[in-house]
């Protein structure tokens, strides 16, 4: 088998950080090649170099043995490689059709919008993406946007396609559809590079896997020859046992109660209660309303009807500070959107909810803040230069830990976490789930909202939502298949 794409000895620095330090990868013609590594290992940086967005400080990229085209020659790059980037490249103010054919709306001259729409519809149909070609991309759900990006990447007809964490925001059936598409592309001889933190996906879809650690290449092996724990060990540099959820007995005290909650278009007539020492999962496929419900519980949204009580006291609807004061801590759905202020320090981001306790008369004492932050950095094992480093400079997993720190800093009696491990590497995932369980062992109640079955395994029971209603209360001991069936509404 010949080598289709090759990166040799690539070095890339961003100021003081070295994102890639002599990294290599060689991808054989026609294979689906996984690239895995912990957050910040340099995977996305390699992607931007392989797609010609950034110039390596040293090293070279070769396609089928030839040197890569000049950086300015975008057309040449696009004939060689198509990509779904980790960061969205959808332009919200433009229609889906235009996003699909950005900068190639027409060959030359006037754009024929009608023809463009037709082409877009055809493309969306081909990849079974159920999206209106004329809708504004900004009106799509995160999942739909992701599908549009994938359809666009596939549409170039390039012989090499890179997918950087495409499944981080997809639910089960959507992932299956994507994999089906990838398999058929492979049959047509297309080479792919696939990046994901879901290692089971690597086993499902890839033939070869390359592991990066600390900006360097560690190993490249056939997937079939590499057991799961060896792969994790290669990524983390040490042997790591799979996460074992702990057993506990929930207490009797109701810490969180939602009664008769309805929000038009999102969820209808939901009752929910969480006891101290209990972890309740909220699951459901796309648009089931679980996130909307969780956001209502924490005060980010206001229900049309119904009440939320924390520790027995009713909380003013739609009032985050009130919910926090009542003893609630939470991790929002999207860390970039609602999780942290990138320019502010780790210490500050982590201690906002307790700022009033860090000094008198409205003053925040920097030394007390630093002390508290160091405590949180220690307990959550956040990899940072210190409490004064801006969160924007941290890798995704560590930023997510800071968001956890913010949720946990006030010793909440109720913890609501939404997609707690999105885009987070194996080890960080364990740390974060462990943090939820620690809090619960200290007597808190927790709600875990997630699409990932791994996250739901720590739950004492899982409420499954379907089209805005809670359809089933599944106790511990479910199998993947059972739970997915309920989520898809196949069985009730």
């Amino acid at each position, binding site marked *: 088998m010949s080598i289709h794409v090759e990166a040799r000895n690539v070095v890339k620095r961003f100021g003081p950080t070295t994102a890639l330090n002599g990294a290599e990868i060689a991808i054989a013609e026609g294979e689906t090649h996984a690239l895995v590594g912990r957050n910040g290992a340099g995977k996305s940086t390699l992607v931007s170099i392989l797609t010609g967005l950034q110039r390596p400080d040293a090293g070279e990229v070769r396609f089928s043995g030839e040197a890569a085209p000049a950086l300015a020659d975008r057309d040449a790059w696009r004939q060689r490689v198509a990509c779904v980037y980790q960061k969205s490249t959808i332009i*919200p103010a*433009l229609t889906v059709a235009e996003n699909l054919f*950005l900068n190639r709306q027409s060959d030359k001259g006037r754009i024929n919008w009608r023809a463009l729409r037709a082409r877009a519809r055809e493309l969306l149909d081909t990849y079974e993406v159920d999206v209106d070609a004329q809708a504004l991309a900004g009106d799509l759900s995160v999942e739909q946007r992701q599908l549009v990006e994938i359809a666009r990447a596939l549409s170039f007809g390039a012989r090499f396609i890179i997918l950087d964490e495409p499944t981080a925001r997809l639910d089960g059936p959507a992932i299956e559809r994507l994999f089906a598409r990838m398999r058929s592309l492979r049959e047509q001889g297309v080479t792919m590079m696939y990046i994901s933190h879901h290692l089971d996906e690597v086993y499902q879809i890839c033939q070869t896997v390359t592991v990066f650690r600390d900006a360097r290449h560690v190993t490249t092996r056939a997937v079939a020859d590499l057991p799961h724990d060896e792969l994790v060990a290669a990524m983390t540099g040490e042997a790591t046992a799979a996460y074992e959820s702990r057993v506990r007995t929930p207490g009797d005290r109701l810490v969180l109660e939602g009664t008769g909650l309805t929000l038009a278009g999102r969820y209808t007539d939901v009752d929910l209660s969480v006891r101290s020492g209990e972890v309740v999962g909220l699951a459901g496929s796309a648009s089931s309303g679980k996130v909307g419900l969780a956001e209502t519980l924490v005060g980010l949204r206001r229900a049309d009807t119904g009440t939320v009580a924390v520790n027995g006291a009713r909380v003013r609807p739609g009032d985050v500070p009130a919910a926090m004061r009542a003893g609630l801590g939470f991790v929002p759905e999207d860390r970039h959107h609602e999780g942290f202020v990138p320019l502010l320090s780790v210490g500050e981001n982590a201690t906002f909810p307790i700022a009033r306790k860090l000094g008198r008369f409205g003053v925040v004492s920097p030394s007390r803040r630093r002390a508290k932050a160091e405590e949180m950095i220690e307990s959550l094992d956040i990899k940072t230069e210190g409490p004064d480093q801006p969160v924007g400079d941290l890798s995704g997993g560590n930023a997510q830990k800071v968001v956890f720190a913010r949720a946990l800093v006030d010793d909440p009696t109720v913890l609501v976490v939404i997609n707690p491990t999105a885009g987070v590497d194996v080890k960080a995932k364990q740390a974060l789930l462990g943090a939820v369980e620690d809090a619960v062992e200290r007597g808190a109640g927790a709600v875990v909202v997630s699409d990932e079955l791994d996250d739901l395994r720590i739950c004492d029971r899982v409420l499954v939502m379907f089209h805005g209603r809670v359809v089933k209360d599944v106790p511990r001991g479910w199998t993947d298949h059972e739970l997915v069936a309920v989520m898809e509404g196949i069985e009730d």
Partner: protein
Amino acid sequence: MTAPAPRARLARFRDLTLVPVIVLLLVVGAFLDPTFLTAGNLTNVLQQQAAISLLVLAEAMILIAGKFDLSLESTVGTAPAIAVMLVVPVTAGGLGIGLPGTLVIPLALLVGAAIGAFNGFLIIRFQLSAFIVTLAMLIIVHGLLQGPTEGKTLFQLPDSILYLGSAMWLGLPAAVWIAGLLFAAGIFGLGYLRLGRALYAIGGNLDAARAAGIRVDRVLYGVFILGGTLAALAGILETGRLGAIGNNQGVGWIFMVFAAAVIGGVSMDGGKGTILGALTGVLVIGLVQNILTLIGVSGFWQPVIYGSIILVALMISRIAGGKAQD
């Protein structure tokens, strides 16, 4: 065959949220003053707005591309003035270089383009804040008019620079034709050309535009240069209309330019808005000015009425547009 989806159809109408306002102004104007609805008066409104509308066109494109240019207003006076000074003798306020008079229009456009290119250079190459760079440039470029003229008006102008702003073509001022054609070109270009669509992509998500193979820097340079050139053309039209270049030509326009673009639906945040919308914004501002003049509102209170109308138009386009503005 296919009915357009409701959202997209709505988006198209969003360009036209000011049309009811324009109709209302026409009715109110006709009611308040009999002269208002005459062909003569409406032609005057168009002629008076012709020059400033070119600035709105330029600013709308720059805003859509996600940038900002305050210095356009200074170019309106400085570009034609420098061109004239290169041409006329010292006795008429010239610099004594004495280039041929026929070159004056290309020279003015060139000066405008050079100012735009310099803005682009500072903003794109040095990655400085567009607001503050063009604010400094607004001051500097105006100084480049004041300095050599020592504050004096240039009134001995070559005939060629006066022609466009004062000629009539087919019964309408040439300036109106020119502005109309350029707006038509703008509507077409930003609606149907890849280059025009690239502005939306750049303003909407710069990294995505770059990833899609759009030569972002080149397009942005182009937009700043085009903006400066249009401002220079606006200056040429204004020079022809007024017959001389005063030291204050264009000064203070920029606020109206932004007001027109924004009430016309162009977002200050980039990537949103249309040239047609910007045009309706210009017309609203022109009609309001004309009506206030006709009914003779006290000059002291005019700003209050004027500002309030901008606020109301803003609210209308906010409510009709439905989304928070930025």
